[in-house]
């Protein structure tokens, strides 16, 4: 029997997948006092709290699944789902509710935006949905979730009181930064450079601090998760943003770019463009699953990054061999584009060695420097790594790296989960010293 030949970028022999969108939403909203409900039969909760959430053991957060059954899915019975949420909300009194979809409700076309609207009207608290499908990576889910927070919970433009030399750190979750000391270190690094951090989205800050996000002079997007929120805040308050991670000795460049951006803001006047302010309203919870892959206008705007906003571009070596399969780049980094891009710039600046970033995540537009590349699937990654000399990546990438390469471990929770958590903690302690 003959079957259609497919391009097998979807088959994986040995390495895992990144944290998916559903867990991304839960991680981003974990500390904000809301209730996140995953419409799912089973498994999403266990996967999330076992592998993607290092706070679960003793830090309470209202994250639940609906326990969807085949009968309810087939019959389109949403009422049970709604009633369970009403009951839980009545007892647990969350500050808001977010609805998250797993693959079956996505496939059924469950109208989450409509359900959210109905619940919001009944319960009198903010209710929104994040259009996950369980088939995107965490950046997508966490990014859209934080954009909702930026849209709904940061007050009005009239309430802001811009403070000089201040930033919010956007895109901060344990998935990219591990336990809280990693976040504290970023803050400390910036403060040493004369930049005060007003809030960290969304880890280690109170909702009150986040509510005052409009007071920041500039927003600093420290991982790609923070881009949608940055765009929302830019349109809402006129706050410009810079993309870069203030770690690995790269904090001075980040701080410098923040200062430049602040200066530019002053010169341009900081009134937000009223006409553009509403662009993001509705984009986040439109339920349009194609918003990244095919792109509705509003969704593209949410993820938009201008090269001038990317701090780490300025220190990357240019004129590199565009054939990223070649070994001309001596050092290869694998991972999330903003953190790895910043690390690459830091290495190139400090040691003058050529570095390339391979990014296996979906959202890379505007975040990769010349010579870096997005990779899809295990086989492509193996091909790209075939001539690598020095590789810095999560330890679970080791099986697809050539045996001749020098491999330096840089654990990433969004990839290997909690397996190397102790190593991350040790690394954080070393950085603090």
């Amino acid at each position, binding site marked *: *029997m003959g*079957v259609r*030949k*497919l391009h*097998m970028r*979807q*088959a*994986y*022999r*040995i390495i*895992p997948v*990144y944290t*998916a*969108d559903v867990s991304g939403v839960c991680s981003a909203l974990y500390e904000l006092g809301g209730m996140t*409900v995953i419409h799912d*039969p*089973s*498994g*999403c*909760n*266990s*996967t999330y*709290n*076992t*592998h*993607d959430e290092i706070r679960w*053991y003793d830090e*309470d*957060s*209202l*994250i*639940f*699944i*609906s*326990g969807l*059954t*085949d009968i309810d*899915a087939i019959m389109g019975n949403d009422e049970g789902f709604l009633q*369970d*949420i009403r009951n839980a909300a009545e*007892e*647990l009194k969350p500050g808001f509710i977010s609805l998250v979809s*797993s*693959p*079956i409700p*996505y*496939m*059924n076309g469950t109208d989450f935006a409509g359900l959210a609207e109905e619940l919001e009207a009944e319960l009198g608290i903010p209710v929104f949905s994040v259009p*996950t*499908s*369980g*088939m*995107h*990576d965490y950046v997508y889910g966490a990014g859209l979730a934080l954009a909702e927070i930026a849209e709904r919970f940061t007050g009005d433009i009239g309430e802001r009181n811009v403070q000089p030399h201040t930033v919010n750190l956007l895109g901060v979750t344990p998935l990219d930064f591990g336990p809280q000391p990693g976040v504290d270190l970023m803050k400390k690094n910036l403060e040493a450079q004369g930049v005060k951090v007003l809030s960290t989205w969304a880890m280690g800050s109170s909702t009150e601090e986040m509510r005052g996000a409009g007071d920041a002079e500039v927003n600093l997007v420290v991982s790609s998760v923070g881009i949608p929120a940055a765009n929302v805040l830019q349109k809402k308050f006129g706050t410009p943003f810079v993309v870069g991670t203030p770690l690995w000795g790269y904090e001075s460049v980040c701080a410098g770019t923040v200062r430049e951006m602040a200066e530019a803001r002053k010169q341009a006047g900081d009134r937000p463009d009223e006409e553009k302010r509403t662009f993001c309203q509705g984009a986040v919870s439109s339920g349009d699953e194609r918003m990244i892959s095919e792109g509705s206008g509003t969704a593209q705007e949410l993820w938009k990054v201008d090269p001038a906003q990317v701090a780490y571009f300025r220190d990357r070596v240019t004129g590199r061999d565009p054939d990223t399969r070649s070994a001309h780049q001596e050092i290869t980094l694998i991972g999330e584009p903003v953190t790895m891009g910043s690390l690459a710039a830091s290495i190139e600046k400090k040691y003058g060695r050529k570095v390339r970033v391979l990014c296996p995540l979906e959202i890379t537009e505007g975040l990769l420097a010349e010579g870096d590349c997005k990779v899809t699937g295990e086989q492509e990654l193996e091909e790209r790594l075939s001539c690598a000399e020095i590789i810095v990546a999560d330890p*679970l990438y080791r*099986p697809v790296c050539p045996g001749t390469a020098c491999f330096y471990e840089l654990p990433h929770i969004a990839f*290997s*989960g*909690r*397996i190397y958590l102790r190593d991350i903690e040790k690394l954080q302690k070393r950085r603090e010293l």
Partner: protein
Amino acid sequence: MDWKGAAVAVKDGTFPVPFVHGLEFNSPVHGNWNIVHTGMLVPEARQIYVCADNCMRGVVLTAAEMNAADRFSFVILNEGDLLEGNLEDVTIEGVTDVLNRLTEKPKAVLLFTVCLHHFVGSDLDRIYEELEVRFPDVLFIRCFMDPIMQKTGPTPDQKLRLAMYNGIKGEKEKNVVTLLGSDFSLDESSDIRRILQKNGRELREITSCDSWKAYESLGSGSLFMTVYPPGKMGAGYQAERLGREFLYLPGSFDYEEIHRQEEKLLKVLGGGAGLDIQEEIRKCEEALENARDVIGDTPVVLDHLFHPRPLGLAKLLLTHGFYVESVYLDSISLEEKEDFFWLQKNAPDLMLIATVQAKMRVMPRKRRGKVLAVGQKAAWFTGSPHFVNLVQGGGLWGFDGIRRTAGLMVEAFLHEKDTESLVVRKGWGCESCI
């Protein structure tokens, strides 16, 4: 916040589900085995899952944490695959791609299809037929990760415990007895082992199979039996497939039931020598009395993860003077119906406490004073470092199982454990790299 809806005195509880269904919480206790752990018991086999990222993440990291990533592969489904509705081709080509990239083909592939395959009406027969043509030397075992079906039919775990034995075969050997459906070997001192030894029978279990050949030879047993409830359906099916006698002997804490089970076993073995029941009971009484002397009136809390018969254990302990305060469970097994009604009458104030009910996320988990927890969930929900660290009944069975339980309780009472470090590890008894 009050406990209403999350806890109920047994006298007010309804059988078999004492709590109203609602949103579900998942505690950070992960000692239970999941389908990845159980599937890894098949030697020289590879597991291949075909599902979406979010579902994949849990299983692929389960394999990684148990140091078995080299026996696990997968095919990712994306939104486009669903819109096209053709999961057959993706599954066939993905599995083919994985197998072609392996230097050595596995003896068997446990191929897990998922909820999405059901919902788009995938032709599973076509998938397996095509793969069997392409890889004639590989046995493809039909497995499922379809939890959406589990409230209205067998769970993925039950279906796996059926399918994973499809490769066993062999001529019937009179002196061989095969235990199917369990994740753990029976304890060396367990009643079943002692009875079989007395009667010159060899016990074969998947847990001791280190090769495909040894696995296949599980089929030689003249008698198939299972002691673990989720294994009953599969073991019964395999006995029927190979024309073997079958016994279901679930682990119990009731002297009379154990006695009846052992008589049944002896009958099937042809009326051989059994244990001295009176002596066994005397030793159990002695062990329980000793435990009672040590533990005294300290509150004891039990959970359903420790053993499939938590109410039976509660009854045993209560009748031997222990202060059993509560049992953590979400539903009651039909096998425990009598125990439930006995407890309603004789221990009406015993509390039944849910583990998945939403408010269990925020209810207090610290207790004043010492609490002896029997099971990982009981330990986490009470914050107790004094707990019996064992899941799914482990290798306990019979009168010996009762004595071992009493011994484990004493040990837990006397020595603290690092609860957080132990209960978060997946698959109690498996390797764990965390």
